[in-house]
């Protein structure tokens, strides 16, 4: 059972792709509805200067030994530590081969060794490379030390702690996050999906009002467009014992597409415009342009009358008036490039466009090839047409072409842009109108920069006290691949069957039934299994064997591996095992190989290495 700790605070950590935020709620206050505060995180902001800021940029910089004196990089709690945060980001902008950014996106990259030291990709020789897992641990260590330094009487390891992850994180990425927390000294951290955290934040700031804004039968679509990723979730509202119940019924795929892509796209549009006027830009000017575009974008995407915004890329030298680059970005360009490029008004049946990747592609993040977020949204809602079929009160019309959401909550930096919100809402409303359904209502009022951390802190408080909890469990069912027993046919791989280990919607702290299927494994030899997830097959129970499925129903995850080591068995001996799934108290999937008719129990590992 969960260890009872005397927590003084309920803490939520948004371990973001571009920023980390820590929010806390005082549990010992007299206040019935304590507010979620944001903790200012001390970090280096310049050589020798430390400042506490509400966000810790998720950047790690590895300086050359000649770059700084030791005393120029102090922190209140340590003299030797990793260079993380604001100063790391600034230095990285000018020295890109020594900085690690977007480590979180690498954490969910199935085709690399996620525990392998691979970052920075192009690091110079004197930099010892780090793994995506290590970088997550560095950020968590920084947050832990910062908190403990300020609240020595209430160390973070003794508080209620929740760390958020994208809803689309695979089991291995979740486990790596929990491992990073544990190795940073945060054993008790539980995970929460970011779109759920955003909804918790909305509930927390609406107070009791939220029950008036949503009703039984509502299906809330959470659209979280951050700097680097887009995360989608559906949460259905049902009734149980007279009170409203929230159920997370579906999550989207991992979409590596966000606000940063938009800034870079705009910068290239402006650079092209300048090239036509005969001005060729240097790389540093392009990145300066992206920075300038970020500001201009916020003005031009808001609902106002500004038709164009001048862009200035400041000179690198001290002559500001003489050396700066001037350009202009117009509302029309932003509408064409961003609104129509990233949010086209597509049909709900639109398919996400994928082209084959070049065979010799270098190691890089699997950026989305189709930049149209509305197409990703359409395919998500279509795929999840039956997401609410097992719930009372959220029945969909028989002829529905997609799952009809009734309410929408936006989160993430892009949600600050009024025109983007309007375009997505219009597009969804168009789909609904074509299906003769009523328009969607908008849930508003969250602070998009801090909602995830605040929602996580609220949830940490709810876990030990009162308040509404979103039910969900796992948003996928999990399967292992088994080769079908059939006569060998030359030139043809034996077809795979999929054995369900964990059904959809397993709650934390529960175990799946032990499937009858046994595997004869040889002691001492690693055995690998193909591993699949399905975000749509909601009725498969543990032990079900599929010999046929639609391509889009099951997606393959990195393999899982088990090695039987045992004192009771000799190497080379064969043992019959069954594979059992459980969701532990921290909310992560655990697989075990259990000896049939014996006492052996071995941990099955998620493969985080490249194959």
């Amino acid at each position, binding site marked *: 059972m969960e260890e009872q700790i005397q927590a003084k605070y309920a803490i939520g950590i948004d371990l973001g792709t571009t920023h980390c935020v820590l929010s806390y709620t005082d549990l010992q206050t007299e206040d019935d509805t304590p507010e979620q505060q944001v903790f200012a995180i001390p970090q280096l902001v310049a*050589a020798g*200067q430390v*400042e506490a800021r509400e966000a810790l940029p998720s950047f790690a910089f590895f300086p050359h030994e000649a770059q700084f004196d030791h005393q120029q990089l102090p922190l209140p709690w340590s003299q030797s530590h990793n260079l993380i945060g604001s100063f790391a980001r600034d230095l990285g902008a000018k020295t890109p081969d020594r900085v690690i950014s977007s480590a979180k996106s690498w954490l969910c990259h199935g085709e690399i060794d996620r525990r392998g030291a691979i970052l920075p990709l192009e690091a110079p020789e004197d930099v010892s490379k780090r793994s995506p897992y290590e970088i997550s641990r560095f950020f968590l260590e920084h947050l832990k030390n910062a908190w403990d330094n300020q609240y020595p009487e209430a160390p973070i390891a003794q508080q209620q702690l929740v760390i958020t992850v994208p809803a689309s994180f695979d089991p291995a990425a979740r486990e790596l996050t929990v491992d990073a927390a544990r190795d940073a000294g945060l054993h008790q951290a539980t995970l929460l999906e970011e779109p759920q955290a955003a909804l918790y934040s909305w509930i927390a700031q609406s107070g009791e009002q939220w029950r008036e804004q949503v009703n039984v039968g509502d299906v809330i679509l959470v659209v979280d467009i951050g700097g680097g990723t887009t995360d989608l979730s559906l949460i259905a509202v049902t009734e149980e014992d007279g009170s409203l119940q929230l159920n997370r019924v579906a999550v989207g795929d991992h979409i590596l597409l966000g606000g940063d892509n938009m800034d870079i796209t705009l910068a290239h549009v402006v650079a092209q415009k300048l090239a036509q006027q005969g001005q060729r830009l240097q790389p540093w000017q392009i990145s300066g342009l992206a920075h300038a575009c970020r500001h201009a974008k916020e003005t031009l995407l808001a609902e106002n009358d500004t038709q164009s915004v001048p862009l200035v890329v*400041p000179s690198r030298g001290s002559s*500001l008036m003489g050396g*700066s680059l001037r350009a202009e970005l117009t509302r029309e360009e932003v509408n064409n490039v961003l609104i129509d490029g990233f949010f086209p008004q597509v049909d709900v049946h639109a398919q996400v466009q994928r082209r084959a990747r070049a065979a010799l592609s270098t190691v890089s993040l699997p950026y989305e090839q189709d930049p149209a977020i509305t197409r990703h949204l359409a395919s998500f809602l279509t795929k999840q047409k039956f997401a609410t079929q097992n719930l009372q009160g959220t029945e969909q019309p028989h002829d529905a072409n997609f799952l009809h959401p009734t309410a929408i909550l936006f989160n993430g930096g892009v949600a600050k842009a009024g025109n983007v919100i309007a375009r997505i809402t219009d597009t969804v409303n168009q789909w609904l109108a074509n299906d003769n359904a009523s328009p969607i209502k908008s849930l508003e009022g969250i602070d998009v920069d801090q909602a995830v951390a605040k929602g996580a802190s609220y949830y940490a408080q709810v876990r030990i006290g009162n308040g509404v909890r979103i039910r969900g469990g796992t948003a996928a069912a999990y399967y292992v691949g088994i080769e079908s027993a059939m006569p060998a046919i030359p030139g043809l791989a034996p077809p795979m069957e999929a054995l369900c280990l964990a059904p959809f919607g397993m709650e934390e702290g529960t175990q799946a039934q032990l499937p009858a299927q046994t595997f004869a494994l040889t002691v001492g030899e690693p055995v690998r299994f193909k591993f699949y997830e399905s975000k749509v097959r909601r009725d498969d129970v543990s032990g079900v064997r599929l010999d046929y499925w639609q391509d889009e129903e099951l997606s393959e995850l990195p393999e899982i591996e088990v090695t039987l080591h045992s004192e009771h068995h000799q190497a080379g001996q064969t043992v019959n095992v069954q594979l059992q799934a459980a969701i532990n108290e921290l909310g992560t999937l655990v697989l075990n190989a259990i000896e049939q008719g014996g006492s052996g129990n071995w941990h099955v590992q998620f493969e985080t290495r490249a194959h």
Partner: protein
Amino acid sequence: MEQNFSFFTRLSMAIKMIFSGSYTQELFINMAPKVEEPEEVEQPEIALQENSTDSAMQLLAVLQKEGRLIDFINEDINAFADEQVAAAARVVHQGVKKSLSEHVTFQPVASVTEGDAVSLAADYDRNAYRLSGNISGSAPYNGTLIHKGWKVESLSLPAVAEGTDLSVVAPAEVEL
């Protein structure tokens, strides 16, 4: 009787006091049993203190970093066309605004609208309000608010490591 010493008289008195050891004497007197003496109304001495320039230099560095203020001021504005000046001014405005908002919060001193009538009581805050124009008579002082004034509500600057040379408000950059 009110004594009016000039600024320099006060300054020299303060310096004399320090060197004559009258502070130390006072310390001994305070420690001895108190003897009731007829009270003499005396204006307290006003010590002038030099401010440390460290935080001023830090603030300059903050304004230079994103706002490029020092670059802007040190350039010959007459040598450039209005377009170029305007472009640079945007960098300065955007950058200084952002850096200041991260470190300083301001409040107007007077809450009424500029141009409206203001009445100041006899004990008004001489630091926060400045009288101008035709000053005569006694309180209340009735006039018009010309400038609402600004007051720093909060100011925070980064903590600095010992031995950091703050006079370098922008390091020279060398690209390799």
